[in-house]
């Protein structure tokens, strides 16, 4: 145990450098993903036939294929058509696109759980469709989506470790780097696991507080 603590604290500065990249990847991707998710969800619920088909195809394709394959397609094949992305940018784009599809499903469920009568009520006081989505439906749907959204954030933090495979120096990559120099694989990776675990615990706690704070009383 003392040996583990010693190894862990020796590795800590490098692991913290990695954690910065991990959080950067996760936070930027979850925010872009939220934008994509809201757009896709609205298209799927309120869109015409064409936009419904298109957005459903997007969601099904993304959810039916592994994230790692999506990342490889983006990172290794775009240079073929002359677009060179850095590992970090490629990872952020593919994580955002992926997370967007999942978030779309959560938001769609939340939108559909808002009572139908409210849309009619909004229309009857003279709001346009876009106004009622933006001012009446979305504020409620986004509150309802917080628990599953927290889950999604946790997933995303864990899956940012895949960015290591295209060369982003995030937490897993730093762990691998440290361990391959001091050969303390078990201790270093346990330390890395401990960091992921703590980050996830903190985030889950933060969002359950947020959920309570923005709750609409009586709903």
């Amino acid at each position, binding site marked *: 145990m003392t040996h583990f603590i010693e190894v862990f604290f020796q590795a800590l500065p490098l692991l913290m450098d990695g954690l910065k990249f991990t959080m950067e990847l996760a936070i930027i991707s979850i925010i872009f993903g939220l934008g994509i998710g809201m757009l896709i969800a609205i298209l799927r619920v309120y869109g015409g036939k064409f936009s419904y088909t298109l957005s459903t195809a997007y969601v*099904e*394709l993304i*959810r*039916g*294929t*592994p*994230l*790692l*394959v*999506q990342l*490889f*397609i983006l990172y*290794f*094949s775009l240079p*073929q058509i002359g677009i060179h992305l850095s590992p970090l940018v490629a990872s952020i784009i593919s994580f955002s696109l992926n997370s967007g599809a*999942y978030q779309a499903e959560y938001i769609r*469920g939340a939108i559909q759980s808002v009572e139908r009568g409210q849309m009619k009520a909004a229309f009857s006081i003279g709001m346009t469709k876009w106004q009622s989505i933006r001012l009446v439906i979305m504020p409620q749907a986004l509150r309802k989506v917080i628990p599953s959204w927290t*889950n*999604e954030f*946790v*997933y995303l933090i*864990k*899956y*940012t*470790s*895949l960015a*290591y*495979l295209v060369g982003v120096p995030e937490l*897993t990559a730093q*762990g*691998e780097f440290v*361990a391959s120099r001091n050969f*303390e*694989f*078990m201790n270093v*990776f*346990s330390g*890395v*696991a401990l960091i*992921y*675990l703590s980050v*996830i*615990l903190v985030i889950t706690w933060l969002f359950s507080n947020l959920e309570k704070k923005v709750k609409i009383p009586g709903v």
Partner: protein
Amino acid sequence: MEFFLSSMSVILRGTGVTVKLTVTSLFLGAIIAVFVALAQVYGKWWLNFIATAYERVLRSIPILIIMFMIFFGLPTFGIRFDPFIAAVISLGLRSSAYQSQIFRGALLAVSEGQIMAARSLGMTGVQTFFHISFPQAVRFSIAPMTNEFTIVLKDTSIAYALGVTELLREGTYIVSTTYEPLLIYSMCAAIYFVITFGTNKFVSIMEKGFAIPGYEVRGVERG
């Protein structure tokens, strides 16, 4: 065309490994999951505590780290696995944490009244479990298990990092000799998609066949 055919045979070989990896991991996960769920539902407080800690910890660590701990970490203690076995153990352990939650939910969904009815007929606790709770819980688990299948199938691609020659790695071998990343990786994606989509359709048909009339449970989880 020749190029297409020769790469197709390699890719199909990889697909075979991917499917094998998925099925064995799910099977291993299911066995462990039953015990974890039992400990959580029927266990004493300390058993419940251990099972819950096991489940929470495994659910909070990236699968890549679990794989690294088993493949690179365990040799420190003299335990060595080849990449395929290490991948099966990692995916199986991680999946057991998720499957235990599916199975726990399913066990709790069996109504209390039925258990009491069984006990009042003179069945023992073990009999009640095997004849009443378990058969229903397994049926309740089918729909959410499809999600779990999809997750495990997609995450077998991460075994790439350990050097298991599954679909994605076979694809990468072809890419490194032909330099056609877009074509090859899209082919891989298409295969994953066909398997997940096909299984989802197949299971939803099977689910209808096994359904207890009037009893439907559908779980929504990240698939």
